[in-house]
């Protein structure tokens, strides 16, 4: 079976690194982007099964990037992943498919990805 391809978007290099390591261990193929514009560029030119998107990023923030990505491919699942829990209940109004509060414990992220890909 072909590995599912994930795109991790975060401005913190070590978060990207951590998530990449953790998710590759789960058997995914992981690419990374450090901001919204780079993420959009990657989504345009490569095929992904799911995007994990930080909200607070310099340049283009996650919510803007989310809309752009959905414009390119509205079926591509996107999970918002932010250190800030304040807006967790609002994620559906931003057309995102999931919202995970960043934590050293990556189990919630892994579970959310699994659920979304399983449904897809």
């Amino acid at each position, binding site marked *: 079976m072909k590995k599912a391809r994930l795109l991790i978007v975060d401005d*913190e290099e*070590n*978060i990207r690194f*951590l998530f990449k*390591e*953790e998710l590759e261990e789960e058997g995914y193929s992981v690419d990374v982007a450090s901001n919204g514009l780079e993420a959009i560029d990657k989504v345009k030119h490569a095929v992904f099964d799911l995007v994990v998107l930080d*909200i*607070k990023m310099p340049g283009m*923030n996650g*919510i*803007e990037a989310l*809309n752009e990505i959905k414009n390119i491919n509205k079926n591509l699942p996107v999970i918002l992943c*932010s*250190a*800030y*829990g*304040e*807006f967790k209940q*609002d994620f559906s109004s931003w057309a995102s498919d999931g919202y995970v*509060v*960043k*934590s*050293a*414990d*990556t189990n919630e992220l892994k579970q959310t990805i699994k659920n979304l890909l399983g449904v897809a």
Partner: protein
Amino acid sequence: MHPIDILGKIIAISHSNLEIASRINAILNIITQDMPFDEAIVYTLDTDKKLTCRYKNDKSVLFPLLNEYRSHIGEGIVGSVAQKRIPQGFTFKDVPPRLGCLFYPDLDGYIQKYRAFHFIPISDDSYLYGVLFICASSMERLNKPHNAFLSMVAREIGGILRSNQLLISSKKRISELATLSELGRVLASSSIPQDILNSITFIIAKALNAAFVTVRLSHSFLKIDSQRFTYGEIGSESKEIIKKLEMEVKNQEKTVSLKDLDTEGYRNTTSTSLYSAPLTSKGRFLGTVTIGGPITQSGSVMEGNGRYLIETIANYISSGLENTLLTTKLKDVLKELNSAQERLVEQETFRNLGEMTANIAHEIKNPLVIIGGFTKRLARKTRLDLTENRYIEIILKEVARLEAILDEVLNYVKESPMVIKDSKISDFIDELVFLFTSDSAWEKIEITREYANNISFVPCDDQQIKQVLINILMNAYDAMQGSGKIVIQTGLKIINDRPFASISISDTGGGIDPAIIDNIFNPFFTTKDGGTGLGLAISNKIVLNHGGYIQIHNLIGKGATFIVHLPIKNTTIREERI
């Protein structure tokens, strides 16, 4: 001595600075010394319309007898001369007994000493001041020069009496004005109502030489404990009558004096004069002021024009009380505004602090996730002994603890649950405008308010909606770089058959860049240096939580209008729908 010289002396005396009694008595002495007259007496007309035998030559014999009784105008020869204002002369043969007045029984033994009696009215074109009475024993009739001389003397005495009356009335007037100005000063002061009222009674009592002054307020007025303010002693028998007077004043809404009151018994036994006047303002009865003083007391300002005086004073006190009421109200409002301002500043500080805390928490969270995440990985990848495993566990436990603390902080920052109540939106807009305009940084910003009159109460959490408006106003301020115009309007709009109250805030800050307008409600989106990007995001959330929404009209190059729509119940609409 030649009559001309005598007249010269008289004129010199009448123009001197001597006291009135000294001047007139001196003139009467001259007449009796230098002319063939024995008695020279002057009656004056007093305010009670009676004639008083007041001035005389030193050697006068008749004065003590005539001074026994004060005759009315028209009574006796003196009264009739005063009434007709025509001089009258008699000889000992035709002079009426007791000079025509029965109340001079003691005159009987004296009149026959004299042969000529002459009465000259002291008057000018409009006013009678008194009567000059002359007796002579050396001749039967006064000749023409005598008559001419006496009429000139009478005119001179008239001049003295007139100028004295003017002096007295101007003194009265000055004292009235001084009292009123003193009252005005007290009433315009910002003292507490109790102090003002106590001062008022004191000033009036002193100025009018009154025995007592009492102000009674109607119950609802000023909301102060005491309803009566009194200066001076009120006798126990007067208390009842004052209450009656006050009742009468309240019923008739006009000045009432003791004389008007139908209490025969009391009136006859009392030696007190009483006036009570209503205090009214804009048709509202505020209370009464009552002034009392002994009737016989001379020099009391209350004599003669009591009614006029008390009404003037009552007018003063009324308008003063109205001012006091306004001042009291104003103080309350100011107090409320100040505390509202303090609350708002607190909230604003808290809000900024909240946003800052959220930001810091966010910034700490990332490194913490990295530390914890990699520690976990490290633990999985490496073979560790028991001690090393314990170290790892400690790190992970501490990371989890920190994460929990951060979550707690972030939860705390989240807005508290909504407290919905009917709030008058114009009130809290006024409050905000007051808050902002009292900040000198806002002095170049002109804020106009236009409130729709068909909407007043809106069910909302006013603290939260205030936060929303503060955010929008602060953004307007930033967009206008501290100078421009803000228009705040309220209105009513029916959307999908549901009524919404709208608060619109327009600025002249050039509008929002169309490239970013879709993002302005996104969290962490900001165009400001040091901005958190949470202000409008949270505002939007608050309004959405209320079941409303924020609408933006963007005029590029001119300004932006933010309209906050809040749902209202149909019953809160006061007038027809727009």
